[in-house]
């Protein structure tokens, strides 16, 4: 089995078991819709202000509901000591990590793919003017959430307060990525292209992904095996 086969075997396993039970996906999706609804009370839904806040609102929704998915990533392996079996299996820790990160990425992406249209319908916004760029930016930011979330999921998996610790640890660390995603999404939802003034946010996002993906790939073996 090559490295990529191993990665996709893990990702496939996670996605299959999640899509069959949909336990994290359903919870996360309904949570996301509830937050989207709550935001209508925060800001007048018909005002122009909403457009200026759209990136912030959307990424708050994704960050909150994404954590529900990230929490399940490693916790899913706890019953029947599946985690020990995975660690004992003949694949490197980084393959396990990337497999889980890809699965988390795909699941959060599903939430986003549903939330964008719902957001557009509920708040009467046309958000598709810059669709390809918006998809690319969302993918970069979602990958940031998926890598950090998977890594910290591994760190907190054996804790009693796991569900509380994960958001407490990853939100502050994700701030550069979330901030960039919010700025760029607001711009793109309003139909504007990324200009020279905003290109710095894209750079931050890409640098964030590269730094933390490589850091996680190096350190994950230590976390899982010890």
């Amino acid at each position, binding site marked *: 089995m090559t490295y990529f086969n191993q990665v996709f075997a893990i990702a496939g396993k996670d996605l299959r078991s999640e899509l069959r039970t949909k336990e994290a996906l359903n919870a996360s999706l309904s949570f996301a819709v509830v937050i989207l609804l709550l935001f209508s009370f925060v800001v007048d839904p018909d005002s122009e202000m909403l457009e200026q806040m759209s990136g912030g609102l959307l990424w708050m929704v994704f960050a909150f509901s994404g954590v529900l998915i990230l929490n399940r990533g490693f916790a899913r392996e706890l019953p029947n000591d599946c985690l020990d079996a995975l660690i004992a299996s003949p694949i490197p820790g980084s393959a396990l990590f990337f497999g889980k990160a890809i699965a988390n990425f795909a699941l959060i992406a599903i939430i986003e793919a549903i939330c964008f249209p719902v957001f557009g319908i509920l708040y009467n916004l046309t958000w598709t003017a810059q669709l390809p760029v918006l998809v690319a930016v969302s993918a970069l930011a979602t990958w940031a959430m998926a890598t950090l979330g998977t890594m910290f999921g591994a*760190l907190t998996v054996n804790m009693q307060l796991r569900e509380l610790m994960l958001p407490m640890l990853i939100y502050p660390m994700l701030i550069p990525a979330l901030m960039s995603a919010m700025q760029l999404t607001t711009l793109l939802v309003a139909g504007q292209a990324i200009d020279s003034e905003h290109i710095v946010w894209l750079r931050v996002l890409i640098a964030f992904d590269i730094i*933390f993906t490589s850091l996680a790939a190096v*350190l994950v073996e*230590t976390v899982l095996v010890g």
Partner: protein
Amino acid sequence: MRDKLIYGAGIFAALYFVRNLYVILLQLPDEAMQGAVYRIFFFHLPPYFTAVACFLGAAIASGLYLKTKNWKYDVFAVSATEVGLALAAINLVTGMIWGRQQWGIWWTWDARLTSALITWLIYLGYLMLREGIKDPSERAKNSAVLSIFAFFAVYFTYKANEWYRTQHPGPVLTIRTGKNTIDPAMQAMLFHNLGAFLLLAVVLVAVRMNLEDSQRAVESLRRRAHAIA
């Protein structure tokens, strides 16, 4: 002997602070633009540098722990992080007091202030993670990994925020600006107080390491007692 050295250094640090305070309050003149309040700066920048030194030390010790699995490094990492957190809190609080006097507001969501607050929260998360893990070797391992991540995140946040325009005043030290915009006596005082804070940090980290050692001794005794009973 080691204790005597630590407390000796502690007394020296205290005397150093008294001497610095004497110069700050009685010898240095008021600043031309700000008047008397600029003096709080001597308790704003030095604790910040010291806190960064503590966090850097903790990250290096964490890396060494992962490499060698020597408990000493874990003990150092947690002690340095706790002391760094306290110093970073001093930095935030003195900054807020100055801001209230000069800007008329306690807080503004300026890039510098925000990144300092994020730093503080990230390291608070480190301590919470330690609280939450019972098994000592897992606690040491996971918190070491977190410490390394935290240092990268802090540096990255700091840099990412630097591309903003900030309300926070720019650098004043000659080594940063390359110009002599700061009064030499005031700059010398900054370095004196930095020395005092660094010494204080060394003493506090050493005391905290002793405490951690005793805590571990108690823990292992308790485990042995459970094993017998």
